[in-house]
């Protein structure tokens, strides 16, 4: 943990290095400072050219925030509430569901036959095409019919001695993580089509709480599974073994022993997921339009709606940023305790 790599440096070059880091820090912080000061400026204060120091260069005002709260440029309050509700619930569900899966992948053995996976894919695709093209179902009906059938068939097929490789826990983990690799536009656009098809059946998923939360849970899961697996692997197995000797059921081992022991990890994962959901733009752009619009969409809209009203834009951006600033403070504290060590292994 001590400083290697630069130990051979003279004190002069050490100072040079420190100066370099300081410059990078100033570059990092200046844009943030700029939003903060701009958010307190009056319109003429902005248009007159750059000013830097409140009370010296310009007289600060709260007007941009008052406008924001009164919803002069979009329903700000409601949007903020949406972001908070969707963010908190999606992060909580994703952390819970993902932690369970990660625990299962660390402690239990899974074997999936490659053939079964193939059967699932072929039946899903084939069944969907058959139902929608030949049997006259709508696309959403065809999807909703084909997938359970394909899934059931695949689960049954997994018990048969099919030829081909057998996939273990590592492969399942890779499958989870690889979901993060493909460009979200592929999923976002398809999800929009799927949601609107299902909407025609009567369940509204576009611009709805359920639709948006479900989507965020699914796209946070890879990172949750990835991070949590390392935390669970770091937990000494002896405690669990002792409990197993006493015949404590697995779910109680998980809830009573494992979860409390990895509380730090769960908390950090929850915060990282929350940051991801809070800032997410593309899915929100596709899947919401008015009622469940989130902050990034509103903030982006400030730009085009009424021209460049920088004071208003700054105030909106600042409000979107502040929760994440608090998170940065909390996370940086956890960072010191080696939080991310596991994530890069």
């Amino acid at each position, binding site marked *: 943990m001590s400083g290697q790599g630069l130990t051979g440096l003279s004190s002069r070059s050490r100072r040079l290095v420190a100066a370099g880091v300081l410059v990078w820090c100033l570059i990092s912080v200046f844009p943030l400072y700029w939003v903060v000061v701009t958010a307190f400026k009056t319109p003429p204060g902005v248009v007159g050219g750059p000013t830097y120091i409140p009370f010296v260069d310009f007289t600060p005002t709260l007007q941009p925030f008052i406008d924001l709260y009164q919803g002069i440029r979009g329903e700000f309050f409601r949007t903020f509430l949406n972001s908070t509700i969707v963010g908190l619930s999606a992060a909580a569900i994703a952390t819970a569901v993902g932690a369970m899966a990660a625990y299962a992948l660390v402690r239990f053995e899974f074997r999936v036959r490659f053939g079964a996976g193939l059967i699932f894919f072929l039946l899903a695709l084939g069944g969907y095409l058959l139902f929608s093209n030949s049997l006259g179902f709508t696309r959403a009906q065809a999807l909703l019919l084909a997938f359970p059938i394909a899934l059931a068939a695949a689960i049954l097929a997994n018990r048969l001695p099919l030829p081909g490789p057998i996939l273990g826990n590592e492969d399942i983990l890779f499958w989870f993580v690889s979901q993060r690799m493909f460009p979200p536009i592929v999923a976002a656009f398809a999800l929009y089509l799927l949601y609107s098809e299902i909407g025609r059946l009567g369940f509204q998923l576009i611009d709805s709480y359920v639709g948006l939360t479900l989507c965020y849970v699914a796209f946070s899961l890879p990172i949750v599974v990835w991070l949590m697996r390392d935390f669970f692997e770091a937990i000494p197995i002896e405690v669990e073994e002792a409990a197993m000797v006493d015949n404590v059921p697995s779910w109680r081992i998980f809830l009573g022993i494992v979860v409390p022991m990895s509380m730090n990890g769960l908390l950090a994962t929850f915060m990282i997921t929350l940051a991801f959901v809070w*800032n997410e733009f593309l899915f929100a752009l596709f899947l919401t339009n008015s009622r469940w619009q989130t902050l990034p969409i509103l903030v982006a809209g400030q730009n085009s709606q009424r021209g460049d009203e920088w004071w208003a834009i700054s105030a909106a951006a600042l409000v979107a940023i502040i929760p994440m600033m608090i998170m940065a403070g909390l996370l940086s504290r956890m960072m010191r305790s080696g939080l991310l060590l596991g994530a890069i292994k």
Partner: protein
Amino acid sequence: MMRNDPIKHVFIWPAVLVVLAISIFPLIYSFTTSFLSYRLIPPIPPRVVWFGNYASLLQEPRFWNAIFTTTLIAFIAVGLQYVIGFGVALALNARVPGERLFRVALLLPMLLAPVAVALVARMIFNPTMGPLNQFLSMFGLANLPFLTNGRWALACIVAVEIWQWTPFVILMMLAGLQTLPEDVYEAAELENASAWQQFWGITFPMMLPISAAVVFIRLIESYKIMDTVFVMTGGGPGVDTETLTLFAYQEGFKKFNLGYTSALSFLFLIAITIIGVTYLALLRPHLEKRR
């Protein structure tokens, strides 16, 4: 130790089902759509065209332009992020004075919404009200057309990407640096190896696996760039800064050209996979040597 207990299914199935429902189902759906000619505005009923969408995309100069732009942004931004990030991580690891203070400041940019960051960037790059042009004019430079000239706009987007994501590199590299064994450095000290020799002989090779992973993650993520470009330039001027995701958005959401957009997103997926596989294949010999 692995154990076998039927309850394992209760643990894993919720996650599998959510991922299947939300990302695999739509994938199959859009896969089939990509072989159709299907428009909502103006409404044209679906008609099977097989590879027609793919063929017309590959002949579309705008598509190649988007690929080129995205690649340019991703490679330049990630390269510079890596160099700066590694440097700062080394410095922080060597315990430069004030290291604790730097940590929050360094973590901040990557937690902020890219949309908000892009708006702030627009303010800073603003030719008349922005502080950057005022700063540059102190050195006698004329007002620069930051976001209105294609090349400058591209450079600005790259700068914003670097600003936002270098912290990620710093964070990961710092975590990696802290796992390096100390005795190797002590031995190098005894040999009177200079700091530069120590870096190229020990630190860099030992950090290679982590570096490879960090660059890989950043590269893949950079290819998805959308929010920043959407807000900063909207792809303009013209289509000079249009990235792949933005192009797909324009086709899908402005023209509702469903089959075409599906085909586009699949080509994108193929491109990402090719880049990922090539990258891993190129690096594998170097990584295995170190083990």
